[in-house]
């Protein structure tokens, strides 16, 4: 059984894909045209015009093979086992380069990922990882991981986020979201394992009163349960319950570089759609968006009173109105939409969908989640033993970071005050910390801050400032004196520094 290989510019993409669908999957010419226009073309239209495609037949795709052996092979119709893989390169490639090792570096520089086509007509778009560098529009920041792959016998790496469309029988939007989350985390961190559709089904069998295939979707609690079984300390946030804080919490987790499962729904608006997708990033924040950032308001009467009495103006970076980047199994990778219109990239039937829930796959030892962490920090700077000066105007940027990444960025940040840098790097920290950068609108427009608060994400006991590791703002540094067991305030001028941006990847080219 030979592998057929083709190289064509994306201009000839339609002809190539239609030929492959006919030759490899036995789809007739008319249907191949329909499938291309409906499913493949929307992907190709997002790619740069100088894209080249290398197509390989008889590709063994791990995700489809799992679905095949656990489901499709048990059906009467004969489904093929093999897939087609389309690999993408930015700029022209020629076949002889693959057999010339001196050309491999140049090929790697051009390599931008792949899409698998599976023989599950009409749901043919399978697993894919596309680098945002291939997109015509990539002015966003997002979670991404480096994946290893091979093309025409040569090993390559691509930096992107996993995507797959649903086949509607073994995987619906819910299972696809779980698969993509685990594919990302397992590739990035050794704490997690990749999962296949059959593993999701097996895991949820424990809590399902009905059969799992053909899939009828999953409810949010089932998705959360599956993530918990796969090693996460999952949290669920409902818009109805968190109301005014909901979007800010959503943004905070995205800013933390954690892909989150988002539930959108229009059933409360008379529709019948309930859909799961992933939020993995947001568009690049412009100066205008920071200027337009509204003042922080809260239903917390104590904080509101302090803000008023001390004439303090507070801004929350998470309240910046922006587009988020979604991985949606009904659309090509990296869709952008505001949270208020999460299905803005769909047709009219979907336009009245709202985000109703999101699920956060937290590292299991992050015991202090965003709602309480943000609340603690606000209380500390407004009502703590060393509160902000009266008449202050402050912008706070919250995010979760691994202490390793944070310290690494800190060590490389030559704008950070030297003494405080030493103290922070030499301070014992848990694996994850909550970081609050204290800034102003003007400073944030230059991507700078002049204060920082570090909170222990493993400390759920918020009383007596137990989660506080260190705070430095307005010429003071507050930290625990380990001998006396009390907090102490030190005079320290922390001048402006470049903010930390290690959580999300930039791609704009």
């Amino acid at each position, binding site marked *: 059984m030979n592998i057929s290989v083709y190289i064509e510019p994306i201009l000839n993409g339609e002809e190539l894909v239609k030929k492959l669908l006919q030759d490899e999957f036995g789809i007739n010419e008319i249907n191949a045209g329909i499938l291309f226009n409906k499913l493949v073309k929307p992907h190709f239209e997002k790619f740069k015009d100088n894209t080249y495609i290398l197509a390989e037949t008889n590709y063994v795709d791990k995700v489809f093979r799992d679905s095949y052996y656990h489901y499709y092979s048990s059906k009467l119709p004969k489904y093929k086992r093999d897939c087609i893989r389309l690999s993408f390169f930015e700029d022209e490639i020629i076949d002889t380069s693959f057999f010339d090792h001196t050309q491999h570096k140049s090929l790697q520089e051009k390599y931008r990922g792949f899409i698998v086509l599976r023989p599950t007509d009409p749901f043919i778009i399978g697993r894919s990882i596309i680098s945002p560098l291939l997109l015509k529009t990539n002015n966003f920041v997002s979670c991404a991981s480096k994946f290893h792959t091979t093309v025409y016998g040569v090993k390559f790496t691509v930096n992107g986020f996993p995507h797959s469309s649903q086949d509607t029988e073994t995987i619906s939007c819910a299972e696809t979201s779980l698969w993509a989350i685990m594919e990302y985390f397992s590739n990035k961190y050794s704490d997690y394992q990749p999962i296949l559709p059959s593993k999701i089904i097996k895991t949820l069998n424990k809590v399902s009163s009905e059969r799992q295939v053909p899939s009828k979707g999953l409810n949010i609690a089932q998705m959360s349960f599956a993530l918990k079984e796969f090693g996460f300390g999952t949290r669920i946030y409902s818009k109805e319950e968190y109301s005014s804080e909901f979007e800010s919490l959503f943004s905070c987790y995205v800013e933390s570089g954690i892909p989150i499962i988002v539930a959108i729904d229009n059933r409360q608006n008379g529709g019948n759609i309930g859909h799961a997708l992933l939020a993995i990033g947001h568009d690049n924040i412009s100066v205008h968006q920071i200027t337009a950032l509204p003042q922080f308001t809260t239903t917390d009467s104590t904080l509101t009173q302090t803000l008023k009495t001390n004439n303090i103006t507070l801004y929350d970076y998470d309240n910046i109105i922006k587009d988020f980047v979604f991985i949606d199994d*009904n659309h090509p990778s990296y869709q952008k939409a505001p949270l208020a219109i999460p299905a803005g990239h769909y047709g009219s039937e979907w336009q009245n969908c709202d985000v109703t829930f999101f699920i956060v796959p937290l590292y299991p030892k992050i015991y202090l989640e965003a709602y309480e962490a943000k609340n603690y920090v606000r209380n500390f700077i407004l009502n703590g033993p060393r509160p902000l000066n009266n008449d202050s105007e402050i912008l706070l940027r919250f995010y979760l970071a691994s202490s390793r990444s944070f310290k690494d960025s800190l060590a490389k940040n030559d704008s950070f005050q030297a003494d405080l840098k030493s103290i922070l790097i030499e301070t014992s920290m848990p694996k994850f910390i909550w970081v609050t950068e204290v800034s102003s609108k003007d400073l944030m427009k230059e991507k700078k801050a002049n204060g920082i608060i570090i909170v222990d994400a493993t400390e759920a006991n918020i009383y007596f400032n137990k989660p506080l590791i260190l705070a430095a703002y307005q010429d003071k540094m507050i930290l625990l004196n380990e001998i006396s067991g009390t907090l102490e305030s030190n*005079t320290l001028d922390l001048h402006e520094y470049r903010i930390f941006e290690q959580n999300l990847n930039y791609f704009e080219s």
Partner: protein
Amino acid sequence: MIKKISRTEAIRAKMKREGKVTSLDAAGHISAITTMNEHLETVRREYQVKDSKSQITASTVILTA
């Protein structure tokens, strides 16, 4: 001779020598921390209600599209 390169102890000792350190254990500080604790307790109770209601309703929303 083995040389210790970490600087935190020296920096903090220098700050103390220069009179830049204040212990936050005066009555005003303790009062602020106690009031903060009480407020955090109130917010935690609200959070626990939001959290449990989120979990209860989560089982009623099926995602299929």
